[in-house]
């Protein structure tokens, strides 16, 4: 696939531990997979006979489906391990689940969990390759890879380009992973959000903005809107959705300025129309949301292609 082979890893748990060479390799590898989608036969036999198990402790349609399509196009057998998402799933049951998975001799485990570090815990205890599909507030590495791939398509030279991430940074694994990968690719990262949702301890390289005026004056090349986590309102972080939209949302007026400056728009989905983004922005020609979805499949195929499970007798 890519010209230079990079040594495989067993797991993909976060972006932080990836070298820039590994990131470049994954993005490069995703390219021919994306080409494949234009053909009538979209399948390659790479993972024939291998099994991919999806294990989602948090509800997700998009990410799970994206992984399933990616695995299918690599000819792997995909199984969905049904776990309870209704109740808070405690760590105790995870160890038991690992034992079960071990017995199933699956090759790849795609996991999403509400607690940070669970994919790492599972990776430690199983020979299968573990792909983190989002853990707590910690990491969402395949989202970051697809975001990087999408930015690369519009800006082949990412050095010095500016990305502004807007919204709930505190609870966002997407913000953490995507800012990390953009930074590794030489981009400048800015964040804009309510003071209560921009966390303490964020890295120094993040430029913080508290209003759109200052943020747009910084001249970002990409504006990355985060989903307002309506379900995370057990504690109040801002007075109301209306106020959020007025102060931090991409309103019609702000959208016009974004459009005027030719700034690209991204969003990890699903979108809350009228909260973080106005309707008309969805139809903007530089809105990359649909590309992100398509690129998600290609980059997840690249990740599955790259990872190598441990030996049969390994744990």
């Amino acid at each position, binding site marked *: 696939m890519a010209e230079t082979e990079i040594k495989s890893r067993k797991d993909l748990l976060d972006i932080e531990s990836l070298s820039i060479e590994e990131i470049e390799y994954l993005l490069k590898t995703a390219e021919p997979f994306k080409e494949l989608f234009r053909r009538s036969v979209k399948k390659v036999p790479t993972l024939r006979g291998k099994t991919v198990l999806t294990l989602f402790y948090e509800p997700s349609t998009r990410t799970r489906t994206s992984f399933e399509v990616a695995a299918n196009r690599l000819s792997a057998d995909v199984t969905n391990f049904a776990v309870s998402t209704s109740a808070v799933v*405690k760590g105790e049951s995870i160890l038991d689940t690992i034992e079960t998975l071990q017995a199933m001799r699956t090759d790849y485990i795609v996991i999403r969990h509400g607690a940070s*570090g*669970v994919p790492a*815990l599972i990776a430690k205890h199983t020979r299968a390759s573990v792909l983190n599909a989002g853990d707590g*507030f*910690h990491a969402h590495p395949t989202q970051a890879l697809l975001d990087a791939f999408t930015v690369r398509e519009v800006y082949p030279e990412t050095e010095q380009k500016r990305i502004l991430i807007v919204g709930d940074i505190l609870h966002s694994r997407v913000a953490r992973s995507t800012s990390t990968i953009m930074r590794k690719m030489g981009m400048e990262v800015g964040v804009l959000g309510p003071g209560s949702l921009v966390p303490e*301890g964020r890295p120094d390289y993040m430029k913080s903005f508290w209003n759109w005026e200052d943020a747009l004056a910084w001249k970002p090349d990409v504006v990355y809107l985060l989903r307002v986590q309506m379900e995370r309102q057990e504690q109040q972080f801002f007075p109301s959705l209306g106020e959020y939209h007025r102060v931090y949302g991409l309103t019609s007026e702000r959208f016009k300025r974004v459009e005027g400056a030719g700034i690209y728009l991204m969003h990890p989905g699903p979108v809350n129309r009228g909260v973080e983004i106005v309707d008309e922005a969805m139809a903007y020609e530089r809105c990359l949301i649909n590309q992100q979805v398509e690129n998600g499949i290609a980059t997840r195929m690249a990740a599955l292609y790259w990872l190598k499970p441990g030996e049969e007798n390994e744990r």
Partner: protein
Amino acid sequence: MSELIWFKGGRIAAEDSAKLEQLDVLVEGGKIIRVAEEVKAPEGAEVVDCEGCVIAPAMFDVHVHAREPGREDKETIETCSEAAINGGVTGMVLMPNTLPAIDSGGLVQSVLDIAAEKSRIPIWQSGCITKGRAGKELAGIAGMKSKGVPVITDDGDSVADPMVLLRAMQYAKRFDLILAMHCEVKELSGFGAMNEGVVSYRLGIPGIPACSEEICLDRDIRLAQYTGARVHIQHVTSARGMETIRRFKEEGVKVTCEVTPHHLLFNEEHIGDYDTHYKMNPPLRTQKDNELLLQALIDGVFDVIATDHAPHTEFEKNSDFVSAPFGITGLDTALVSLYHHYVKTGIFGWDLLVKRYSAEPRRLTNLEPVPVVEGGVAELIVFDPNRKTKFTRDFMKSKSSNTPFLDQELDGQIISVIRDGEFLLNR
């Protein structure tokens, strides 16, 4: 066992002397009858060769969770006392946050009864400040006092309502009880599982800001100042909190405080890749806090070192970081780890260790210290700096092994522990 024990050629550690003096010690039936340069021991005395070793007063721990009654799968009073002996500790104060919580004289007695049967060292049980540690109604303070409780505490939680705490202080003061305070504003800690800062951001773990502890600590000492009650601040972790205590002490407020070995030795960076052996509450803070807490210990701000020995099963700790319970064990490891990191390296001397982990903890519990002097009680340890200790599961006597020191090998070994004329430990 011979009636007379002759400790030959050891160097004596004392709280008030930086120098270790080489002296022989002769013990008879629980008493130290002679301490001199060269003792002429009578025939038949049992000789303990202490060449190159340190003889020190045995340690005392004011902050221990023995988990009995209620969580005997984690620890029992028997295994806990054996862990203590293994770590050179011959007396301890147990925290009351068991199941049920120890909030009445009857419950105190039930623990003391178990201890009398199962423990080879004396045990002091502390009582709750509020019934069931619920923070609402006062526990049976007079009844607990009559059973010898030296201190009351809702450890594990703060007393959230300041009016309840104020009344408790006013009341307990008349029973000459110390109130030991776990300082935390629960609303600020929220679902936090570690210190809030760069590492919690990186790991995506909800954080506990240091101000959660600092605000409560400040509040509790101000209430003590107002009521004149004696408060003891447990497991101080933040340098800013420590500075608050220092300031109030200078003003003459009756406040004492403790620091744990882990808050001196470790910080948030040690959590690394979600290692739950570094998860405790209050959490590990920053390297800067380590440095400033250590300096404060040397300066005498901290009255005592205490372990906050908190056993949990391997199953519970072998979980994801957020779900795993707070706490690590400490009795087996405290003395050797402090020796290895601080005494051997010359950062502080045996005098500090003896003062802060033996003498002052006993005074805090209204007990006499046990210095190695002629006429004193023989409650001492022999410590060999030339041996090593490897903290394997086998070596540690606690029922749980949730400690960062698991399988580490450190310099120094406790080779004997003597109390009441008896060898509790003799390696």
